């Protein structure tokens, strides 16, 4: 067969002619390119056979190697957990104070605690544990239920007013709503409470409130209003106001009572996580 060869370039043409003299040059793909191309096709076929590839209606072809990315992640995670099993075990078996004294364990515990905190606690207490109205700031030195490492641990374990039998339970009565105090009395009591931290604007009312406080509030909050960790009663003499430090906030607290809640984490997390969490929270700077 004779080949059509273009006069100008010396390249073979396809033999087709348009508009009298328009010819299409036939430059074949380089051999190496074709080889790579066919190798890719062969590769793809082998891949289809060996790995998950084709979607079906009720699933997909799983491939001869039985590989699954989910499985590979799960086993990698399990491998990581197995590598840390010793440390995890120590978190559970050793007293908290001993963990704190062991540098390696403590670093592991606080790092673990930080991630447990981010996953479980941050929604209420905030990413930096800074809290918000009704949700305590865990960085400060004011602790409703006690700020020692063991107290923090216990609070996390059983929660506050949770459904766990060992939880902290006491709450503040609804003095106004349950008609225990008259609105006027509530007003005076609020003035007195504010005066303890130098916030009162009405000294006469505050003086009237002193007796109301002694009769109704001092049982839990203490004669000096310094609070009581066993009851979860906050100090009213300090500068930290969980529900706001304006007069209206204090009145609302007395009127409707207060009783924030926290779940018992011992039923939700494993023991090593709870302990890591306690150590992390205690590391935030306010722990006693």
């Amino acid at each position, binding site marked *: 067969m*004779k*080949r*059509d*060869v*273009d*006069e100008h370039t*010396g390249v073979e043409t396809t033999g087709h002619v348009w508009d*009298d*003299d328009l010819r299409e040059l036939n430059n074949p793909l380089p051999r190496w390119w074709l080889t790579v191309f066919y190798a890719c096709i062969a590769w793809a076929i082998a891949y289809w056979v060996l790995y998950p590839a084709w979607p079906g209606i009720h699933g997909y072809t799983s491939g001869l190697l039985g590989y699954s990315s989910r499985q590979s992640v799960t086993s990698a995670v399990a491998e990581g957990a197995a590598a840390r099993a010793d440390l995890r075990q120590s978190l559970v078996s050793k007293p908290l104070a001993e963990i*704190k004294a062991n*540098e390696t364990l*403590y670093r592991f515990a606080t790092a673990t605690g930080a991630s447990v905190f981010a996953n479980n606690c941050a929604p209420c207490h*905030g*990413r*930096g*544990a*800074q809290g918000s109205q009704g949700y305590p*700031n865990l*960085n*400060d*030195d*004011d602790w409703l239920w006690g700020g020692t490492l063991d107290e923090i641990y216990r609070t996390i374990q059983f929660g506050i007013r949770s459904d766990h039998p060992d939880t902290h339970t006491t709450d503040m009565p609804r003095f106004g709503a349950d008609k225990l105090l008259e609105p006027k009395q509530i007003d005076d009591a609020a003035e007195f409470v504010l005066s303890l931290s130098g916030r009162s604007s009405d000294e006469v009312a505050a003086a009237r409130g002193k007796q109301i406080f002694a009769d109704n509030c001092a049982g839990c909050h203490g004669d000096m209003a310094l609070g009581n960790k066993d009851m979860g009663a906050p*100090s009213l003499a*300090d*500068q*930290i106001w969980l529900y706001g430090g304006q007069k209206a906030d204090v009145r609302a607290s007395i009127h409707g009572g207060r009783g924030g809640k926290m779940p018992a984490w011992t039923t939700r997390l494993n023991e090593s996580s709870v302990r890591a969490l306690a150590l992390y929270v205690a*590391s*935030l*700077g*306010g722990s006693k």
Partner: protein
Amino acid sequence: MLMKPTTPVTDLEKPKVSLFAPRRKIYPKLAHGNYRRLKWILMAFTLGIYYSVPWLRWDRGAEMPGQAVLLDMAQERFFLFGLEIWPQEFYYVTGLLILASLGLFLVTALAGRVWCGYFCPQTVWTDLMIAVERFWEGDRNARLRLDSAPLVKRLLKRSLTHASWLVIALLTGGAFVFYFADAPTLLPQLITGSAPNEAYIFVGIFTFTTYLLGGIAREQVCTYMCPWPRIQGALVDQDTFLVTYRNYRGEPRGPHHKGASWEGRGDCVDCRACVAVCPTGIDIRDGAQLECLQCALCIDACNEIMPRVGRPTGLIAYDTIANQKAAGGGGVTMPRLLRPRTILYSSLIAIAGSIMLIALLLRNDFEVTVLPDRNPLFVRLSNGDVRNGYTLKILNKQYRTRHFALTLRNPEEGRLSVDNQNTGYLRVPPDILREFKVYVAVSKNAQNDAVILDIHDPVSGASVTHVASFRRPQG
């Protein structure tokens, strides 16, 4: 419109121009002489360095790697004898590379491609591979004959060559991984098959590349893959010593019969000995060219021939273009070593070297960073005081545990505390970065917007001061 019809051409009438030059196989002949001897010595020297350096020990104390040169990828640091380079100090490596290139520039300006001719791993390994090939298949003529020898003989000899190449390549790749892990630990692991997969992968890669580049590709690497031949064109001038065929002496060349007169002709007897020994297969008599590695083997070859025909040696020699020109006119020039470019390169080397040296001498043996907490920015304490949290990082570059004293210089009345550290000293184990949680509380009336922290090593006396911002509620 009527176009002139083209008639289909039946065959290629014009010769097809191809830009592809197929490789000419090269059969370098063994040269004898001073330069060949020098090259053997340098080959032993450079290969000796390559194989022995990972086995040099360096005492850095317990729990530190005891290898003098270790590129520790897992721990992210380079150990070079007494120097340890952390990732953030990689500029020292940059500095070393700059010094190396400037050194290369200077040497090239003085004497051409000394690196290419004697020291480049590609040259050294190719030279070794050619020596092995010569050992099994004989010298140039024997190898030429082997191409048309019976299949069995050819296959036998060639497979011996290639097997030896592969062994050399394997040893090369095998030695390479020792730079990245403790050599005495890794060697038995490699042999017993218990080394990490990465080690085998890299041994494999370097075995393959050594076999391919040193054994098979050889001069093509220098001619086509390496950028250096292109750069060197700009680095040599008429005063650079280059391996040169002295035209003025050699031309007109031609065969010479014993007893014939040397009047009216050059010294070159056109024996092509210089071409036969050339590892890149060029003819030095064509002048300076891209492919020439400046390996000087043609000098040896020519110096062997010249005395035999009764002419002085040095027809091919290290010479400058300037000297050639002068000698062509019957004169001589003094070599000019001090030239603007050599002075420039030398002073750049001096400057870069001094900067490196000063940086190394002023290098602190610990580094400190202080990061103020961003969430929360500040914490109000029950008595109204304001507290800020900081993450303090201390990088201990010494190979001993150190205890750093942390003090708050400003504000003076501020209260400093560190999480889980009651001793007053921050303990940092050897050669590691440690993080500490630091808290500074000030009274609600304080007005400071910064804290100044002093970190001090009582043993070495070194001290670092850090200023960090202090946030408080507005109003």
